């Protein structure tokens, strides 16, 4: 009862109690933020890596792995964005790619071969939606949280520009490309371990054609986060590919 409550409160305020309480109230840098200690991050990184391998349908684990291991790569990406006019604008305006902000009927009406049309075609063919991207939880910087959110939302654009479907093979190819582009450990791990679930035939195609192409394109292309996709729906995919530096898919 209430007597128990008042007596247990001072106890809870000692040590961890104090820290936890202060963390809850003051350290939520953005909605959904869960502050974590370095030990927790390490455990999360290890646990999510194992779980993502064990159950490839746990997309949330891939997301958590990205957040907990991105402490070097994310600031890098953010700086690349800051030093580029278009990237800088994106950081200022913080656009979000969501079904509620996209005008699907207008995009569908665009000519074939344009970014908008192909993007919508990609979403419909693969039956995916931009709204299923997990919001970041464990990134301890509000701007970096946006950077990783942007990376996740731009992932579908990558599929469209690279012409890769959302099956396991397509995802691995996109991961290779992203690994070279962003340097995020999660992409590197995903690229290296993703093929575990593939058949031998697919592995061969992957190794001989797709991966070399993805790496070459990734190296050649400018930073994919520096493109304001929402302002380029009318641009033909071919022209955008050339502009960024992605080689035509095999």
């Amino acid at each position, binding site marked *: 009862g209430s007597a128990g409550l008042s*007596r*247990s409160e001072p106890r*809870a305020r000692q040590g961890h109690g104090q820290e936890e309480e202060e963390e809850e109230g003051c350290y939520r840098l953005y909605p959904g933020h869960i502050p974590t200690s370095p030990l927790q991050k390490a455990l999360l990184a290890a646990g999510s890596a194992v779980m993502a391998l064990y159950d490839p349908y746990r997309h949330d684990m891939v997301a958590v792995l990205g957040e907990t291991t991105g402490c070097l790569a994310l600031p890098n990406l953010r700086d690349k964005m800051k030093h580029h006019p278009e990237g800088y604008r994106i950081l200022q305006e913080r656009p979000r790619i969501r079904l509620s902000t996209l005008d699907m009927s207008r995009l569908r009406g665009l000519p074939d071969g344009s970014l908008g049309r192909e993007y919508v075609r990609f979403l419909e063919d693969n039956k995916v939606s931009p709204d299923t991207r997990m919001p970041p939880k464990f990134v301890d910087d509000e701007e970096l949280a946006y950077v990783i959110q942007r990376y996740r939302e731009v992932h579908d654009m990558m599929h469209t520009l690279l012409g890769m479907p959302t099956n396991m093979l397509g995802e691995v190819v996109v991961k290779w490309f992203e690994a070279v582009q962003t340097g995020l450990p999660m992409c590197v791990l995903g690229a290296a371990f993703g093929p575990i679930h593939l058949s031998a035939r697919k592995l061969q195609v992957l190794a001989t054609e797709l991966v070399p192409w993805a790496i070459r394109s990734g190296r050649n292309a400018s930073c994919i986060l520096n493109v304001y996709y929402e302002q380029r729906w009318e641009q033909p995919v071919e022209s955008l590919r050339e502009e960024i530096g992605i080689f035509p898919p095999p």
Partner: protein
Amino acid sequence: AALCPCRAVLALRGGVLRALCGSVRGLAAGTQTHFGFQTVTEEERREKINQVFESVAKKYDVMNDSMTLGIHRVWKDILVHKMNPSPGTLLLDVAGGTGDIAFRFINYVRSARERQLQRKLRSHQNLSWQEISESYQEEQCKPLGDSQVVVCDINKEMLKVGKQKAQYLGYSEGLSWVLGNAEELPFDDDKFDVYTIAFGIRNVTRIDLALQEAYRVLKPGGRFLCLEFSHVSNPVISRLYDLYSFQVIPVLGEVIAGDWKSYQYLVESIRRFPPQEELKAMIEDAGFFKVDYRNLNLGIVAIHSGFKL
């Protein structure tokens, strides 16, 4: 844990803000209570806990095994052994959700019943064939010897998981499932022989009311048993336990169940719960006699027991 240099300043500001908010809230709606380390109204607390158990229900058993490395099974075994139910006992298992205590109870009385019948057979050496077949029939008809367990839980999802488990494991006789609130049980006075609440009383908002209800529904001579996380007095073990609780358990929650927050709540609620002596006093206040407790694993868990006389 991570140390932030500006923590001291922010802590002070945060504390003052929180105190202000707390008093405004208190004026606005309902009595203040706690949800983990947050301060909320009683109504908010009930709702939050409802949400926690709705979301953890499916992975409840998996998480229990992972967090305690399977040791929770031993704790529950010890509880039922301490209960030592004889065939014919009527048990009410409150907050019994996924049925762990209920199934153990059924197993226990079933084997107790078998032993009972075997002893009867052995004591009558010169039985006729008719008498032997009658006793086999008795065993067939009443394998539990009229023992019954009622599982009562406030959360529909937990009960659902429990019923599925019962079906899967083959438990049907002597088992019933009731949706109900420990603070206001839907049962008559003086009904049950034993009342158990395992890892549930921590989530009750008004523990005093739950204890009063427990007293009410028990028969005179009935026994109250509570299995719950408690306080570790040994400072070394306590630090290790805290480290494990706060650093590892929420991570396990995120990785296995995709739910950090519920497991953060779990470890916080354990810290908020009254320690052994205090709970003992509360049980005595409700009218129970011969109230006693036994620490398991140095106080990580404790079993409290009391009798209605």
